[in-house]
């Protein structure tokens, strides 16, 4: 090997040029190197077990659950109190023991700015065509709806000061408040209500909410009559602030596609207590008090700011130092516990009961291995959901035994839960003819926050001789497409009940709902008995009868185990003690904050 050739000495310039080139190249390389250690907070932040936060998957709005075709979903009267299942004491135990919830003697005080910290990024602000928390939190401040709901799921007047459901149940008449105006001063009339309902019916992902609506009559500006093709008690709950914002017809009714209408963000005009002042996609949403709001002397707050931060840690720090006042996206269990220990922050699991999220492991029953019920049951026995809730989630979630959340009156606590039993699992597999190491499976999960659950399952199944490989989807759409097309074998999933089983539960089990879209019947499950039971429950008015029907439904489903249920995360909310009347109702932050005020400290 020849000696390295020395550069020809020819003066400083030549040498320095050479030197420069070498150094430049080397430095550039080295710098490529270092700079390449790039991070990308967003995924990174949610890589953690985000099971406890309000995002139904990090993809916020994308996590809207489509309502594919379902038979006319009839609900029982939504007047019924769907109590949280956990009684008041239990709920309080869940929260922090801060005695520091400011005991405020004085009455509500006007003024102040409320800062909400959130990791959720909304697509836009129009809730008639978009579901999910990210849109609903600002959306419910900017838009009013006909009804509000109290903590017992009873409807309360809002934009509709009174309403009448016809005896035959085929129409609902709304009487609107007089003198209500939009942010641009134009009056809110029944035409706007009609427009909003029809827009939602035709565009909103939750198809069953307004599917039976045939038309909306507007006999006079203060009266709207919603005509239905069949009795549809669920329609009242569907008029919640997050589900039916009343948008201005005079702005949106111009023939453009509602899903991509420019006014969905630009110069947004709404009907709610706050008006839009600043909107920067993915960064900040600033809303100011609307002086002509139809409820006199409301809202109390001067301003609400939603600060979007990709990093939950920064939100936690903001809560601790008081620059952020409210949040439901604290990231991980560790952060929640840390905040609970902090006397300057109130942490509660109260609120958002209407959402009812369940995390589960679902099987693709069309898969040759998993089509065997014994294998599915074995897997179910191998997984310890208590471990997930107590250890991995550090006590911030609760075990879920069926597809209907424990806080719903329809929950059947007696259905077979497959509590962890490794021996039973091994026996089942052996009887089915599988020896140790015979079975190899893949598991998917919603990236990135469900990774811990998936990784735990891999470990758990190894104990019974099943090798599992993680299938990592780099982003939500990839995962969604894969599951929608049935290309998976098993996947962890997160699906919301949405208050009444008709809205959020039926879609997973009806054999008619295998339509190749995410959050429909993605397991491929088909059971005629279940189909019949669900149809019956949807049309049954009597609460007790319904409970019985759903009870049987859960028994059968758990027996068949197309899905193994894991945990129910409550929506932990952290807020500053100065915040009075915090949004801890059934819809949580997805409700207008016109009654919220800040105590002076």
């Amino acid at each position: 090997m020849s000696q390295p050739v020395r550069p020809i000495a020819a003066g400083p310039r030549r040498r320095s040029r050479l030197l420069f080139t070498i150094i430049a190249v080397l430095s550039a390389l080295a710098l490529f190197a270092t700079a390449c250690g790039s991070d990308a907070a967003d995924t990174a932040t949610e890589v953690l077990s985000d099971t406890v936060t309000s995002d139904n998957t990090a993809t916020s709005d994308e996590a809207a659950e489509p309502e594919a075709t379902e038979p006319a979903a009839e609900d029982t009267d939504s007047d019924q109190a769907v109590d949280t299942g956990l009684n008041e004491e239990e709920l309080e135990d869940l929260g922090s023991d801060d005695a520091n919830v400011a005991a405020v003697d004085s009455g509500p005080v006007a003024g102040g700015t409320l800062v909400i910290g959130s990791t959720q990024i909304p697509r836009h602000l129009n809730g008639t065509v978009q579901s999910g928390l990210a849109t609903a939190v600002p959306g419910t401040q900017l838009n009013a709806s006909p009804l509000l709901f109290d903590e017992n799921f009873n409807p309360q007047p809002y934009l509709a000061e009174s309403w009448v459901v016809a005896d035959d149940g085929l129409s609902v008449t709304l009487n609107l408040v007089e003198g209500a105006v939009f942010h641009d001063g134009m009056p809110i009339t029944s035409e706007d209500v009609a427009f909003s309902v029809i827009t939602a019916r035709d565009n909103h992902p939750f198809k069953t909410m307004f599917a039976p609506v045939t038309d909306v009559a507007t006999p006079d500006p203060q009266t709207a009559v919603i005509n239905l093709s069949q009795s549809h008690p669920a329609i009242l709950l569907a008029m919640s602030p997050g589900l039916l914002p009343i948008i201005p017809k005079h702005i949106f009714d111009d023939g453009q596609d509602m899903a991509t209408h420019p006014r969905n963000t630009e110069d947004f005009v709404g009907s709610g207590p706050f008006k839009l002042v600043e909107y920067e996609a993915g960064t900040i949403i600033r809303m100011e008090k609307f002086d002509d709001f139809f409820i006199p002397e409301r809202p109390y707050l001067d301003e609400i700011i939603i600060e979007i931060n990709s990093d939950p840690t920064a939100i936690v720090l903001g809560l601790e130092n008081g620059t952020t006042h409210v949040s439901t996206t604290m990231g991980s269990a560790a952060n929640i516990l840390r905040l609970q220990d902090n006397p300057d922050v109130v942490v509660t699991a109260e609120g958002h009961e209407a959402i009812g999220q369940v995390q589960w492991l679902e099987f693709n029953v069309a898969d040759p291995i998993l089509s065997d019920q014994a294998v599915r049951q074995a897997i179910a026995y191998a997984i310890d959901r208590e471990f997930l809730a107590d250890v991995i989630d550090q006590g911030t979630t609760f075990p879920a035994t069926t597809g209907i959340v424990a806080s719903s009156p329809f929950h059947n606590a007696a259905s077979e839960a497959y509590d962890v039993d490794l021996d039973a699992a091994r026996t089942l597999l052996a009887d089915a003819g599988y020896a140790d190491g015979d079975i190899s499976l893949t598991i998917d999960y919603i990236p990135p926050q469900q990774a811990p659950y998936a990784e735990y399952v891999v470990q758990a199944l190894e104990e019974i001789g099943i090798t599992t490989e993680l299938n990592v989807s780099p982003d939500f759409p990839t995962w969604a497409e894969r599951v929608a097309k049935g290309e998976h074998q098993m996947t962890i999933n997160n699906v919301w009940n949405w208050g009444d089983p008709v809205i959020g539960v039926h879609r997973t089990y009806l054999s008619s709902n295998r339509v190749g879209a995410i959050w429909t019947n993605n397991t491929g499950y088909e059971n005629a008995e279940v189909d019949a039971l669900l149809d019956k429950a949807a049309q049954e008015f009597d609460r007790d009868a319904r409970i019985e029907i759903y009870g049987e439904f859960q028994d059968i489903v758990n027996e068949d185990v197309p899905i193994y249920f894991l945990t129910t995360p409550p929506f932990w909310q952290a807020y500053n003690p100065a915040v009075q009347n915090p949004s801890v109702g059934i819809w949580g932050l997805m409700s207008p904050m016109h009654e919220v005020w800040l105590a002076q400290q």
Partner: protein
Amino acid sequence: MFFRNKAAVAGLFLLLGVILMTFLGPYVYDEDPKDIVARPLKGPGTEDVPGLGTDYLGRDVLAGVVNGGLTSLRVAAIAAALIVMIGVTIGAVSGFYGGVIDNALMRFTEVFQVLPALLFAMVVVALFGPSPWKVSIAIGLVLWPQLARLTRAEFLRLKNMEFVKAAQAIGSSDLRIIMRVILPNALPPLIVATTLVMGGAILLEAGLAFLGLGDANEVSWGLMIGQNRTNFITSWWTVTFPGLAIFVTVLSFSLIGDGLQDAFNPKLRGR
């Protein structure tokens, strides 16, 4: 001369240490990094908790550090090999032939050079999947231009030298001249560059894993940092130790590369 440079020698020892840990470590410290061994997020020194604490799932951080190197090094090594192959080939051809070929190849190189490295690698991995091979390819795609440029510069410099002309005079083929005559002389800066590229590839792999664009079935340092990132403020050990491992590894390559560079160019030491 290399060995007189204390820093470079230190780098060599560091690298040896890293390699030992990567290949022998898993046998010495026999814990499976993917096993859940204790409650999550317990710090080092807590009772019943392994040496460096547990991560968000309750897995052993030390086991993760010991085993994580293999993935990172493997991906980086393959990427570096790709970079060298592509970069040197293109650079050599470009520098040797000059003219139109040179122009064309340099334009092609420029296309990849102006793309911000991490951004492009992110896109490639996100679109095509995070398997180790694809990550290596993505890294290779973004880092090769600098090596091509360097090789070209060397070839430009060397091709007019006496010994090259002599080889041409005796009728050696172009390929022979490139491979046997010029390339060996161009090696010093290329070797230096390659060591630095290895460091760069490790950082890029760590970064991608951190982003969630890595293979979650393997343990890797970047992945550890990414997965535990939300907790770092309460559980610093989950992030600090894997980060230190990356740092030490890359530093060792940097020190070695620096030492080599010094050895080949004494003027830089400022005597």
